[in-house]
Each structure stands twice: as C-alpha cells, then as structure tokens.
C-alpha cells in the first residue's frame, strides 16, 4: 500500500499552537509563509546557503528551508514575529534599527534570529572556527568583530551591510552584559546571562 503523503500536524510557533494539514514535502519555511501567514521569515536561496529563512527551533537557530514541517512537530519554533516582548523590541532588533544593520531589509529577519542565537551560544561558552584555543579550560573567547563575523557567516547580505550588522550584534551582546558599575543598568528587555567583560571589547 502506498504510504500517506500528507499529515495533519500541530506546530508550536511563538508559543501558539497551529494545527494544519501538510503535504510532507512542505518545508517549515513554506508552511510559515504560505499556510500560516507568518511572512516575516524570508525565502532567499531555498537551499540552506543564505540564512534568510533562519528561525529558532528549540532555542537553536536553524534554516527553515531545509526543515520539513512534518518533522518540526513537537518542537518550539520562534520566528521574527515572536522575538519582541509585546511592543518592546528585542535588544537585537533595537540594535539593528539604531545602527542601520541593513539596507533593503530582506535578509534582516534571518540576521536578527541568527544574532539572537549567536549571543546565546557565545554566552554558553561555545567556541567558533576563529577561536584561538578551543580547549574548554581556555575559557570563552572574547566576542571580537572577527568572532561575530565568523559566527554570522551563515547569513548573507547582498546589500553588504556587514559593517553595521557586526556593530549591531556587538552592541546587543554588550547590552546583555552587566556593564561597568557606573555605566547604568543593562538594557531593559535583555535576555539570558552574560559572561562578564569579554564582550566589552567590541561593545566599547
């Protein structure tokens, strides 16, 4: 007997449950855009090479164009529509606005979702390909511009707004870190826990 090629699934997106029928061929990206009207997530290459479709799956950034919707059932999905706290922008969104971290804006939702995860990955002590010493006893690497560029390399920007994007990620990362004692409280709405002075280097 031929297997069924579609299913009724429930997706948990931005803390809301959506039940929908999907052809198994449907990617999470197409389900978001075409079936759920969550069009903030953008389709760029549709081949996992540009990062425009980046969303968070169980808190980790992923490209939704290579994620089958049926395989995303049971996982917590966060899209660009779900990163702000009500009317208050996420610190990464605010930093992109303040520092012009875009030109046309098409790659921006993916850039922002990716950057949110980059800051959390760095805070968790993850090394990168440009980290001098990956050994755990070497401690977390400072979040230099070189580290940000490497960690954000899965998000292409054809306008070439990279200089401002790096600055925006650095500022947002700094906002999550308790600053010098006399420089005021961390930015309101900051998430997660920082790792101390190691992000100050680029935030300064």
């Amino acid at each position: 007997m031929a297997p069924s090629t579609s299913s009724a699934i429930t997706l948990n997106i931005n803390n809301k449950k959506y039940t929908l029928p999907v052809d198994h061929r449907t990617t999470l990206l197409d389900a978001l855009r075409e079936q759920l009207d969550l069009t903030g997530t953008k389709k760029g290459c549709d081949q996992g090479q540009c990062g425009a479709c980046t969303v968070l799956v169980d808190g980790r950034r992923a490209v939704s164009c290579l994620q089958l919707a049926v395989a995303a059932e049971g996982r917590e999905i966060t899209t660009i529509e779900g990163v702000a706290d009500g009317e208050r922008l996420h610190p990464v969104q605010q930093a992109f606005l303040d520092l012009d971290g875009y030109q046309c804006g098409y790659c921006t939702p993916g850039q922002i979702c990716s950057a949110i995860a980059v800051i959390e990955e760095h805070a968790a002590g993850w090394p990168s390909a440009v980290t001098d010493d990956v050994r755990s006893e070497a401690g977390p690497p400072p979040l230099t511009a070189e580290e940000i560029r490497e960690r954000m390399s899965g998000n292409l920007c054809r306008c070439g707004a990279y200089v401002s994007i790096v600055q925006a990620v650095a500022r947002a990362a700094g906002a999550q870190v308790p600053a010098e004692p006399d420089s005021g409280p961390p930015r309101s709405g900051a998430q997660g826990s920082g790792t101390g002075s190691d992000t100050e280097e680029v935030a300064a």
Partner: protein
Amino acid sequence: MKEFGYDRAHDVQGAVALLGGDPEARFLGGGTNLVDLMKAGVERPTRLVDVRELPLGRIEFSPEDGLRIGATVTNSELAAHPEVRRHYPALAQAVLAGASGQLRNMATVGGNLLQRTRCGYFTDLTKPCNKRTPGSGCPAIEGEHHNHAVLGASEHCVATHPSDMAVALTALDAVVAYESADGPGELPLSDLYLPVGDTPHLETALPAGALITAVTLPAAPVAATSRYRKVRERASYAFAIGSVAAALDVQGDVVRDVRLAFGAVASRPWRATTAERLLTGGPVSAEAFAAAADAELAAARPLPHNGYKVTLMRNLVVAVLTELAEEAAR
C-alpha cells in the same frame, strides 16, 4: 520533489524495521543534505523514517574508554562539548570549520558521515554522472574539476567527500557502530567508505538498510595535541579545497606518535599512513615533515586544474605539524 511517506521512529530497532530494507526509503536526520538533494531531484525517496528522536543524543567520555558520540548528536553539540574540546581539539575544530551555525545545529553526526559529494555534476540532473546514474560518464574529468580528487580517484569518478568532521575522526581512529536487520555491528571509519573503482555509486560498506547509531574514538593521549586546518576559497562557510587533521606526540627531537588525515583530496577522508610510518621515530623538523608529505602525495594523480592541491597539501602538512611540535614543546 516526489511525494513521500513520513514516519517518526522512537527506538533503534523500530527505525530499522520501519525502513524495512526498502531501497527507496531513507533515514532522515537533520535533513541538511537529504532535503536539499530531494529538492534537486537527486534523491527521490518514497518514504522517510525520521530518526531525530531516537535515544542516540548523548556524548560520553572516559579516560579509559575514550569517546562515544551518539548518532543524533548535532554537530554543534559535539563541537561545544567540554571533553571533546579538551581531549580531541582537532575534532571540535573540524566540526566548527564546516557549514554555518544554523546547519551545525541541525546536522547530526551520523548524517554528516553519510552526506553526499558536492560535485556540481552530481547535483545537476541535466548532466551525466556515474555516481548518480551508473555508466552515464564523468564530465568533471574533462570539465570543471578544480576542487576534485587527486588521490584514490578513478576514470569513473573524481568527486571528493565534503565532510570536515570525518577527516578528524579518521585521523583519530574512529569506529562506526550501526544497527541492521541482522543486529548491531561495527566498522572502522577507515573501512566505511568504499574505493571508487568502477562503482562510484556504491559509497559505503554499511549493510543495506543499516542505521549508524554511534561513533567511538579510542582513548588516545596523542589526540590532546591535535589540530584541524582547513583551506577554502573564502574566509568562512565554504567547503575545503584542502584540509589536514593531525595529532603529534614528540619526545625531545623525535616523533613518538603521529596521526595524519587529509580532506578534500579523495572520495573519502584520506588517512596518510605512508607519511605516518615515515614520521614515527623520525626527527622533528620541517624537512622530515615535507619528505613524509611528499611520500604520501607521490600517489597523487592530479587533473589539469587541480594540481595545486598537491603543493597545498604538502605545505599544510608542514605547517600543521610544525605548529603541533611547537605546542608539544611548550
């Protein structure tokens, strides 16, 4: 894309039974390569068996037994693991050198080993390809092959294996554990990939319908002084044009132990056994490193546009072993 059925497996034997040895069914891990190939029409499965929820997501380490990596561990989890970074730094570096943060979060260790070549002819249905359609020919040999194999290739296929992770695993004597309809089994990673010969479409020695369940690395103090270095055509997020995974133990001015593997030069990660034999017990010097690399690369048969790889690999070997010798002397 062709329509397909979808099942989610919850235990290992159940996953193998669901696949049922059906040659038109595929296991789905992170999907970062398989889904892309399905969109291109290169892979046309009639059913997918999702293995992401199998209880194979753990990394275990002990100084006596070494490292055991569950097959569904993501590349990110592997590279971030403290014991991996401490005892096998070349493995963490190799994983971090591959793909992007998004893809490493999705891709699994088992799937990484079984990813397909990125040869442009393989993924272009309008072109012949002996790997995709046996007997149709290999246009790369007369065509675009600047990033194709220089070692172990044949007149039937010159594609390379794209994994960075597998190069480090090969240098560090990894063993692949699998489950098949006949029960569990093991294969040294160096035996997983079949020689190209005249059957480039036959890629691995896994039994039909088998599922990789884990990769193990033996305890190896030499691995604590190890390194992965990758050369590519842009600074990040590109496949290698050449890479080296190496581990080195020196005593005074003598090489006591060495592990060496090359990436992006063959249809599989290339363990440089000839070079290892020459280096072991020999002097710690750039001349000795270069002589060993030359001996290994004597088997190279470059095509008109990839001869640079022979020089590149020689220089990479000398650079990486020199850096490791300096590190070992500290």
